[in-house]
């Protein structure tokens, strides 16, 4: 069941980076610039165990938001979007579980391949946790004008 409007999905798929916001244990929002990897109607991310603080925050509170706002990072596309999501993490296969995302990842950042070739030098970087975001609500500014009211959709509405 698709959960992202097509223009939103296309924008997220094009974005080199976006902002993942989690809720810290003290209730503050914590923002992580991160590369979104779209897979169908879900947004995936991976996080090295070296950067596992966000994982702890997500496990404690899976309510997150993800946004694409950097116009430099979306190529010829336009628009800005924020998606509130429920997040889950997969930690069963830290060593290779993330590799299914590699084609999408290297499309956004070919340098990833060079880094993987140096895996021996940086083994912990490639011990990675998968983060899955299931979209719930979407705020979309088609022309990027956030000084105007966004178009809002709820996941279930998209499929109607």
């Amino acid at each position, binding site marked *: 069941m698709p959960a992202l*409007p097509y223009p939103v999905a296309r924008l997220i798929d094009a974005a080199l980076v976006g902002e993942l916001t989690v809720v810290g*244990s003290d209730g503050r929002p914590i923002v992580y610039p991160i590369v979104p990897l779209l897979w*169908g109607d879900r947004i995936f991310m991976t996080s090295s165990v070296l950067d596992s603080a966000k994982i702890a925050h997500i496990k404690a509170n899976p309510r997150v938001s993800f946004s694409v706002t950097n116009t430099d990072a979306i190529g010829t596309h336009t628009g800005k979007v924020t998606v*509130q999501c429920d997040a889950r993490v997969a930690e069963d296969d830290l060593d290779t579980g993330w590799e299914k995302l590699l084609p999408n990842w290297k499309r956004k950042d070919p340098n990833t391949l060079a880094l993987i070739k140096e895996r021996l030098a940086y083994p912990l970087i490639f011990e990675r946790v998968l983060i899955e975001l299931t979209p719930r609500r979407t705020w979309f500014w088609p022309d990027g004008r956030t000084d105007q009211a966004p178009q809002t959709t709820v996941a279930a509405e998209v*499929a109607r």
Partner: protein
Amino acid sequence: MSPRLRLPGLRRPSEPAGPEPAEFEAAAAAPAPLEPKGAAPALPAPERAALTTPGPEVPEPEVPEPEVPEPAAPSTEAMEPSGPDAPAPLTAEQSVAAPAEASVDTVSEEPGSVTVAEGVACLAAYPRAVLSWVGEDGYPMNVDVEIEVRAAESIVRFAEPPGFRIAPGTTVAITASHVRPLAAGGFDERRHVTVWGQVSPRPRGRYAVTPSRVWAWGEDDLPLAASYGRRLGQARRYFESLSVGRSVTIRPRLSARLALFRASHAPFLRATFVPLLLGLAVAIRAGVVDLVTALIMLALAGAVHLGLNVAGGLFDLLHVSGDGDARQSSARSTTVAGAVGDALAQVARIPPLALGCYLAAGLLGLALLGLRGSPEATAVAVLGVALTIAYGTPPFKLGDRGLGEVSAATGFGPVLLLGTYAVQSRGAFSAEALLLSIPIGLLAGITVYVGAIPNRVADARAGRMTLPVRWSKAIAILGFDLALAAAFVILVLGVAAGLLPIPVLLALAAVPLAMRVRSDLNHHYDTPSALTAALAANARLHMNVGLLLIAGYLVAIADQIFLMRAPFLR
């Protein structure tokens, strides 16, 4: 107040809302197919049916504290309670600076040296930022807003974004970030800054925030590779937490052998063996070589090198994690520390390994003294040991005082090459050995020198006064040029003077590689991420010149032994 929900829907007659497959296929503007290929990555059995309208009516989830064990020692890397990752509330004078992560994650959370004032000043460079807050429904919200930063007053102002309500007193995060897309794909120049504070209403629908904490990182200040070593604490706690949760010890897939291999910097043994083999080659040509002592020397050099790197890494690791103050660590040291620290559970094995190496080196050294001892060889050995200790060991830390390059050039040049020859010749030195040791030593020094260039900002912050920290770009490039030119010119002059065999001119085949390193340095001096290729090429330069010199000597030796054409090749 939560953001206003259910504003006019996105669906419009001309633009179907759902990502229908046909639309994906027709979406020529899309950079790549959106449809996934193959099965999605495996995750625990999901509740994907929950795509029905989850609004504010969704029950509040329990929010337990993360299962993060307490660190063994007080550390600013502790995950809770105040974030992003610091254990204690940060004051306005404290901050959290984040080194970057791998390509996907561009940030992490580590204690650093960016003050709130610096963070606000950094934010002032951005006209827009992401305003984040947590709504009443428990979900965070992000909205891109135009910001007005008054750095002198430490105030950030913005207008309430249309369609949202932010209650006065709400804690917000304001995050500005930057990447530079590359023509060939990917991006660099990653940097970001986040400030936190409570919003105060201002007239005309505007808000003001006086930041109370900040988190910032830029790869120009702290290159990716250098940042890895700083977050070993997070990785360690993660595995500890995972192990506790599953009642089974979970470790990274890094065998003890591999961990120790990495910790010892075994691949860099070539820096040791190139001058040693060249010393033996000179000895062979001089007819003073002894096979038994030659083998002992090879073992001795290997043991000293391993001991040095393992111990150096351990010192750095302790330095980084001991007081938990990453601002005291630098990129270079944390890279080394990372090599050791990646071993995690194997760390306890490091001191015995280092001690074992030094013990073996001591025994082998005594054997050498017994077999071919001489005051000259002993003096060189003492100098070598002193350099290995002083290079990375407190309180000397020559590498932090702008003497690292000279130490490396001396140790991996004259000390090793001349020392090898002196042992073989029972104390005699030769002009040929001395002359040959200079270019190979210079290239070793250049390796250290160039390696410090991308880390110079972090090194400067940590008080590590390497030469690139002390020098401007122009002087640093000039220093590289002079050292490199000297290395090759000495070889040519040595041959011209009849002190070196003609085949050593094979080393000149590495000149194009040297020019490439020089060009990359010049063009990317201020872009650490782009210097990676230059660093790799520079390491190859040292190895290639060394191998070409060895090849030249093999030709000369073969000529001398088998062809009897020494006069020509001499």
